[in-house]
Every structure is written in structure tokens, then in C-alpha cells.
């Protein structure tokens, strides 16, 4: 049963990835593109966890954690730049 369900889950997440890419390309404003990038990193995390289940390896969780940290830092930096015109403000 798992051999049937895993390709279905991969297909659902692939469609989700493509819809997010469409929003990233189309997005009328800059926060739309930022949230599309954030969602792309989350989709990549889920795809990596699923691929780790496919090839039966626990190596991918560290990579997923790295992508999570990088995506969050990128989102925060981009929104901070959008709000203030600067990322790190020294007083």
C-alpha cells in the first residue's frame, strides 16, 4: 500500500510546488513573491522528508532543518528590508 501512496503524495506535493511557482512568477506585489518563496522552502522540506522515506535514508532531516532555518532567515530579512529599507540597523 505504501508503494501506491508515496507516488500519490509526491504528485500532490508537486502540484502544490507548481502552484506556488505560478504565484511567485505572477505575484502582483512584492510581499506576494516573498510569501511564495517562503512556501517554496516549506514545500522543499516536505519533499525532502518524503524522498528520505522513498530511498530509506535518515540523512535528509538535517538538510530539511537547514532549509527551514535558511528560509525563515531569508523571509525575515526580506520583510525587514521591505519595511525599513535596511536589514541590520545600528541605532
Amino acid at each position, binding site marked *: *500500500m*505504501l*508503494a501506491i*501512496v*508515496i507516488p*500519490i*503524495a509526491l504528485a*500532490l*506535493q508537486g*502540484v*502544490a*510546488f507548481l*502552484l*506556488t511557482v*505560478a*504565484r511567485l512568477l505572477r505575484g502582483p*506585489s*512584492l*510581499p*506576494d513573491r*516573498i*510569501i*511564495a518563496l*517562503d*512556501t517554496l522552502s*516549506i*514545500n522543499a*522540506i*516536505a519533499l525532502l*522528508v*518524503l524522498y*528520505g*522515506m522513498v530511498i*530509506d535514508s*535518515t540523512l535528509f*532531516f538535517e538538510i*530539511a*532543518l537547514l532549509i*527551514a*532555518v535558511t528560509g*525563515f532567515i531569508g*523571509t*525575515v530579512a526580506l*520583510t*525587514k528590508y*521591505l*519595511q525599513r529599507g535596511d536589514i541590520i540597523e545600528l541605532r
Partner: protein
Amino acid sequence: MHATMHPIAEIVVCVLLLIGSGFMLIGAIGLARLPDFYMRLHGPTKSTTLGVGGVVLASVVYFSVRGNGLSLHELLVSAFLFLTAPISAHMLAKAAIQQRLPVIERTRGRVWSPARSVADAGEEGHPDAGKPGK
């Protein structure tokens, strides 16, 4: 490749995978289809995060049943995402309010008097409304 699993554990993994992937697809559809940025903010920050939680729980069950002992370090990814999704949503909503993004008529609580509306450009905001970005 999936030969040595207990049937009940296999059913649990399948259900969790389908629920998680379905929630991720629903979040992506919401991001692609909703008409307003403040509505589009709801899809990825709630539904997609819950979908990743489901997929990670499926992975926890899978690797705990198959191999050597309880495997819980996947939950770190899910915990980090659950912590950081509201923070990024809050900062994105603040940036969108500051940029005065256009809203549609059904979006309630406009204290920031948007510069232009999607439907018609002549609508002025109500200064005594509730919190923005509801």
C-alpha cells in the same frame, strides 16, 4: 522496498501522508487562487505548515517502526516550522500594511486606509475599525 512493516503501521503512515499532502495542496491552491494578499496570507501560514506536520509525523512513524528504536529528531523540523510560521506571517502582514496593498471589499478591518482598492478606487477606509489583516 517496503516489505517488513506491520500492516497497521503502514495504514497509519499512508493516512498521515495523504492528509499532509492534501493540506499542502490546499494551502498552495489558496495561495494561487485567493483574490487579496491578506487572504493569500492564510494559505501558506496555516495549511501548509499543518501539511508539513503531517508528513513529518508519517516519517516519524515510518522510521520508528522499521529500524532501530524511536526516531524523534524529525520532530525538530516540525517544531521549528510551527515556531517560525506565525513570526513570518506577522512580519509579512506588517510589510503589506505599510505598503498599502490593495484589498477587496470583503476584507474587513481597514485601519490603514488603503491607497487603492481592487474593485473600485474610490473607497476610503474606516479609521475606527478593528485590527488590520484579519
